[in-house]
C-alpha cells in the first residue's frame, strides 16, 4: 500500500489480485481511514477528498465488472477507484487519471501548413502562388497574377 497526498487530496494505492480486492476493499478503506483519522481531522475539507485506489493485473469477468462498478459508485468514506488489467506503466497512469494532471496535452500548430503548401506548389510560378496565398488580394488580382505569370513563363 502506498499513501499519497497533494494540495487537494489524500489517498492510498494498493495492488492485489482482483478477487482479493473485491472481498477486502471495504476493510482496507476503513483501515486507512481509521489509521489516519487523527490526521484527517486537521482538515475536514481535505478529508472529503479521500481516494482508495485498487489496482490489479487480472481481467474481470462480467460479474466482476458489475461488482467493480458498484464499488466505484459507493461514495461512502472515500472515492474508490478499481482498475484491472494493469500490465504496463501507461495502464497505471490511466488508472490514476482522477488526480494527476492532463497527460496528453498538445498544442495544435498549423504554422507549417502554408510552408508545406508552398513546397507542394513548387511547379506553379512563384508570383502566382504568392498572390494566391495573400489573403488581402481579390480573386481578380490572383487571376491576373496567374495569367501574367504564365505569359511571362511562356515568353
Amino acid at each position, binding site marked *: 500500500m502506498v499513501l499519497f497526498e497533494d494540495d*487537494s487530496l489524500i489517498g492510498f494505492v494498493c495492488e492485489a489480485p482482483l478477487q482479493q480486492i473485491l472481498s477486502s476493499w471495504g476493510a482496507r478503506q476503513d483501515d486507512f481511514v481509521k489509521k*489516519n483519522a*487523527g490526521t484527517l481531522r486537521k482538515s475536514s475539507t*481535505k478529508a472529503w477528498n479521500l481516494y482508495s485506489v485498487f489496482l490489479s493485473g487480472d481481467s474481470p469477468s462480467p460479474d466482476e465488472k458489475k461488482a467493480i462498478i458498484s464499488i466505484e459508485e459507493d461514495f461512502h468514506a472515500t472515492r474508490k477507484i478499481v482498475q484491472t488489467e494493469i500490465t504496463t506503466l501507461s495502464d497505471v497512469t*490511466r488508472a490514476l487519471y*482522477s488526480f494527476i494532471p492532463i497527460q496528453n496535452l498538445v498544442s*495544435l500548430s498549423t504554422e507549417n501548413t502554408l510552408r508545406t503548401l508552398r513546397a*507542394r506548389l513548387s511547379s506553379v510560378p512563384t508570383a502566382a502562388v504568392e498572390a494566391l496565398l495573400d489573403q488581402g488580394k481579390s480573386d481578380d488580382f490572383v*487571376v491576373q497574377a496567374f495569367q501574367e505569370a504564365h505569359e511571362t513563363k511562356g515568353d
Partner: protein
Amino acid sequence: MRLKAIELSGFRGARESLPILFGSGFTIITGRNGSGKSSICDAIEFIFTGHLSRFSAGDVEGGERISDYIWWRDGSTAAHKQVKAIFELENRKTVERIATPEGIRPGFQDDLLFDEKSHPPDPLTRLCQTAIIRDESITRLSTDLPEADRFDFFYKAIGLTDLVTIEQRAHNVYQKLRRNSEDLEKQYAIQRERVAGIISEISQARVTASQAEDIDLPKLRTRLLEIAGLPSDLSLGQLSSAVQRALADLKQRTSALERLKIDVEQLAKWREQSKVLELSSQALEEKLSAADIAMKSAEKGQIEAGERLKSAQVESPAIKLLAQLRQYGSLIGLQNGHCPLCNSVVSEASFSAHLQEIQQAIERTNGTLMQLTEADAAKAAEYSKRKDEFQVQSLELSRLRSELEAARMALQKAEERARTLGVTLDPDDVAREVLSTEKKATELDKGLRDLQASVALDRVAELEKQRDLAQRDAETTARRIEWLATAARNAKSAEDTTKRVSWEAVDECLAALSPLLSELYYRLKPHSDYSDIRYRMRGDVKRFLSFAVGRDINPRFTFSSGQRRALGLAFLLAVHLSRPWCNFHTLILDDPVQHIDDYRALHLAEVLSSIRQLGHQVICTVEDPGLAELLCRRLRSSTADDGVKIELEYEPGMGSRIKEIRSIGPLPERILLSA
C-alpha cells in the same frame, strides 16, 4: 490572460450593478433557477462578440428578438446599462473592455487575446465557442452536430480556415481562367476564319490576275468610257463599278428590245382583230336595243296581268267566306224551317236553291281567277325570256368591248415601249437595234474582265499583307490560349493540392489530438462498456468528422443524452485545451452537469481539477449546492491562484444579486507527512 472581474448593469437579469470578482484559480457560481448564473456567462460572451450565440438571431416571436432582451426592461430603468470586464495579463497588468447598448469599447488590442498570425477568421466568435461551454451547446456543438458541421467546427476552432479560403480562391481562379480560355478560343476561331477568308480571296484574285494578258490600260479605259457614255474623270475602281452598271443596263435594254420584237410581230394581228371586234360590237348593239324594247314590252304586259289578278284576288277572301258559309249551311241545314244564318222563314227548296246559287257564284269566281292566274304566269314567263335574251346579248357586248379594249391597249403599249427604247414599230428597225445593243454589251463585258484582271494583281499584294497580319494575330491568340490552359491547370492543381494539404493538416491535428480526446473520454467515462473513442474523417468535396466506440459504434445513435453530454464535454474540452492561436486560457462552463448522474459529475470535477493543475482559470456555474461544494473542494485553490464561491439569488423587482461570496483558500498541505 484571464478574467479578473465582470460587472453587469442593466444587462439580462441584473437590473442594478452586479459585480463579480473572479478567483484567479477558479470561481464556482451557484444559485437557484433564474438567479442570474447564465447571465454572467452571457455577459462574458457579450463583452467579446456583442451578441448571444445561444439564441438564434433569426428567432422571432411576437415580432421580438433576443436583441430586444439584452438590456434590462420590464418598466424599470436601470441607472446605466453596460457590461464591463476586467482582464489580467500574465504580467499582472489589467485591461478592460466595456459593452453598452451603443456598442463595444474594446479597451485593448485584440492581439492580446489571440495570435495575429495564426488565428482563424472571426477569432472572437471562435474564442467564445471554445472557451464558453454552455449547457445548451454541449451536445449541440459536438455529438449531436451533423458530422459535416462537426468537421467545420473543429477546423475553425484549430485555425485552419485559411486553407479553406485558399482552396476556394484557387477554385474561383480556375473557373475564371477556364472562362477566359473559352473566350479566347472563340476569338481564335473568328481570327482563323478571317485568315481562311483572306486566303480564299487571294486565290480568286490570283486566278483573275492570271487572265490579265498584255493590256493597254489607257486605251481600254478610253474605249470603255466611250461605249458606256461615262465621264472621263473616273478612277479605275469607279470605272469598274460604272462599267458593271452600264453592262447591266445594256442587258436590260436587250431584254426589252427582244420583248418589243415579239410585240411588233403581233401588231398586224391586233389591228385586224380590232376591226372585226368593232363591227361585231356595232351589230350587237342594234340587237341589244331591240331586245331591250321587247323586254320592256313584256314587262309591261306582265305588270298589267298581275294587276288584274290582284284585283280578282281581293274579292277572293269574300268568296272564301262565302264558301265556308255555304258549307256550314249545308251541314246545319234548316232549323225548324228557319235559315240558320238570318233565322228567316224559308222553305227547303228555297234554301237549297240559295245554296246552289252560292256554289255557282264561287265556281264562276274561281274560274275567272284561274284564267287570270294563267295569264299572269304566261306574261311572267314572256318577260323572263326577254330579259334573259337581253342579258345574254348585253354580256356578249361587254366581252366584245373588253377584247377590243385589250387589243387597243396592246397596240398602245407597244408604241410606248418603242418610244422609250428610241425605235419605231418597224420589225427591221427593232432587230437592228437588238444587234447593236448586244454588240455593245459584249464589248463592255470583255473590257470589264480585262480591267478587273489588271486590278487583280495589286489586290493580291494587298490581300497577302492582310493575310500575314491576320495570321500573326491568330498566332498570338493561340499562344495566349496555351498560357491560359497552363495557368488553369496550375490553378486546379493548386486547388487540389490545398485540399490535400488541409486534409492532411486536419488529419494530423486530429491524430495529435486523439490521445487527449481519448484521455478526457476515459476520465469522464461516459459508458461502462466503451472506454475508448476514435475519430473518423472522410469526404473529398465536403468533409465529415464522426466518432466511434467499440466496434465502430456511433455514439450519437447509441448513447443516452447524459452519455452524449459526457462525450461532448470530452470533445469540447479537448478542443479548448488545444488552441494554439488563443491567449485566453479561462474555461467557462455554464451548468455542465445537466442530465449527468452523480458518478459522472464526480468525474467532471476530477477533470476540471486536472485542468486546474495546468494553471488554467476555471469558472463554473452549477445549480446543485452539493456539487458546488464538491467543486470548491476539488478545484485546487492556492495562494497564487485562489478560488471563490458566489451564491446568487433573484430579488423580485431588483433582479439578480449576490447572496453570498466565500473565498476558497488552499487546503492544508502534507497532512500525512505531519502525522
